[in-house]
């Protein structure tokens, strides 16, 4: 090998080592242990970008193995899948192929489709922006200029309408049915995570300043969301955080310099966390997705990469383990064997 090539290889290796922390045998063992722990715990569904340009829904084990396409539609992108609370059906958005999917406005794009758990027999329900399952799976909530609407799936009729109280995107109904969470304008501060009482419409702030993509913990008491804190130099990096619904102290789950963390979601028992690690801001929907990650919530906070500035801010943070998943977008998890008998 010529000297210049050797130097190039050496430089590349040094760069790689500086970008990622040293992967020790113990680290590898910890990841392997995590992989073994979650591999049999049901299934993930996520949107994965195809080489031909559209996005399809892909089923996989939580460790990323046994991937299986649920949709294969070159003319359409299937996005943001969510199983019903009983995991018998799937809601997702169908967006014309070629449309750039907005990482924070995807709920306004395309149409809402309801299908069986494996995305078969899909029925287009309509625009139904930000359509989201009710806890019993008999209704959906939507968010639009008209406000928050609750629609009965059997009759397709709006059964209730509430003021949207500043919500402008990413409205999700809590598993216990008592709350909504979403991203809102509050007191001049945009991208604020807000919780709203479904019955009274009263709301409270969960996290202020540069937050988005909130989602509920299965206990309906905590909300997981992305946040780009102001205590960083320059533009900063988006991190994954969690906070109680009543909005007291929030805490970081995962952060990594040179990566924007989005797609936060918890496993059905709340023990594990899914997310994506995007080198560019936006979560990857505007491009080809982003590498997925899976960690235990009990291991939080975890800091990936070298991330010296972030480690100074969170000296107690762990290095891992984080199980790497394929490039994907908006993963969702069920512990139900959705393939059983199908």
């Amino acid at each position, binding site marked *: 090998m010529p000297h210049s090539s050797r130097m190039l290889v050496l430089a590349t290796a040094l760069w790689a080592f500086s970008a990622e922390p040293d992967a020790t045998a113990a680290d590898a063992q910890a990841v392997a242990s995590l992989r073994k722990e979650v591999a049999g715990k049901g299934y993930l569904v996520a949107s994965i970008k195809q080489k031909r340009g559209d996005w399809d829904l892909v089923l996989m084990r939580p460790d990323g193995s046994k991937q299986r396409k649920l949709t294969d539609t070159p003319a359409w992108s299937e996005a943001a899948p969510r199983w019903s609370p009983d995991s018998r059906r799937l809601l997702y958005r169908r967006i014309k192929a070629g449309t750039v999917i907005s990482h*924070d406005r995807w709920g306004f794009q395309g149409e809402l489709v309801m299908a069986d758990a494996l995305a078969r027999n899909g029925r287009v329900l309509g625009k139904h922006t930000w359509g989201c399952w009710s806890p019993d799976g008999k209704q959906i909530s939507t968010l639009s*200029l008209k406000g928050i609407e609750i629609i009965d799936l059997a009759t397709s009729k709006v059964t209730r309408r509430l003021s949207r109280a500043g919500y*402008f995107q990413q409205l999700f109904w809590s598993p216990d049915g008592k709350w909504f969470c979403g991203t809102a304008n509050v*007191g*001049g501060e945009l991208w604020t995570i807000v919780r709203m009482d479904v019955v009274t419409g009263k709301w409270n702030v969960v996290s202020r300043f540069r937050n988005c993509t909130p989602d509920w913990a299965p206990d309906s008491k905590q909300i997981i969301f992305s946040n780009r804190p102001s205590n960083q130099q320059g533009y900063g990096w988006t991190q994954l955080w969690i906070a109680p619904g009543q909005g007291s102290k929030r805490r970081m789950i995962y952060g990594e310099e040179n990566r924007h963390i989005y797609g936060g979601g918890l496993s059905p028992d709340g023990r594990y966390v899914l997310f994506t690690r995007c080198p560019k801001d936006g979560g990857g929907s505007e491009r080809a997705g982003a590498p997925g990650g899976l960690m235990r919530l009990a291991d939080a906070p975890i800091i990936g990469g070298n991330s010296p500035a972030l480690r100074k801010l969170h000296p107690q943070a762990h290095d891992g383990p984080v199980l790497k998943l394929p490039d994907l977008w908006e993963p969702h998890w069920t512990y139900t064997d959705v393939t059983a008998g199908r």
Partner: protein
Amino acid sequence: MEEADGPDSESTTPDPPSSHAAARIILLGVILVGVAAIGVATAVRNSATTTASADSRDKDQKAAVAGEVGTAGRFEVTAKLVELPGEFLPNDGLYNYAFVLKYEVLEVHRSEGDVASTLYVAHYNPRKTRTKVADEFYSDLGGNLERFRAGDVHRLALEQPWDQHYIGPLVDRYHKLADKRIYWAIWSNSAGTGG
């Protein structure tokens, strides 16, 4: 001595013109006058046509420039941008937002109901020129305004209330002002620069 028949060769008086020559000269004059008249008439007519055409073009241009400012929304005002309350957020296509700006109303052209003398107007993605502001989500926006500069005068087609027309992040640096009305800018044209 009797003079001989023939011209007096030494006569000092010019010979009078013959009748044919006079006719030719008169005809030539008439032709020249006619040509000149036709020329003038043509020029005048062309000038008139050009003026009318220019007027028409000008009207078309003005209409194109005005765009939908006279028809969009229920409100149309000419107003002076009072100030820029801080910098606009970065707008690289990834994040989209509306930014509230304060105006002093100079003239109300159309309205449904009263329009206060001070207006608060939410402009979508204010870093973009208005010709490029429309997108997949807000396709009806436009105007010829290139940039927002304090003191400039804008002619605006507006709607109200803003949150029945826009659902997205709103940067409102006047949020502490209670009971203010925020209008949603649909069409924004330049109507003069500040002094």
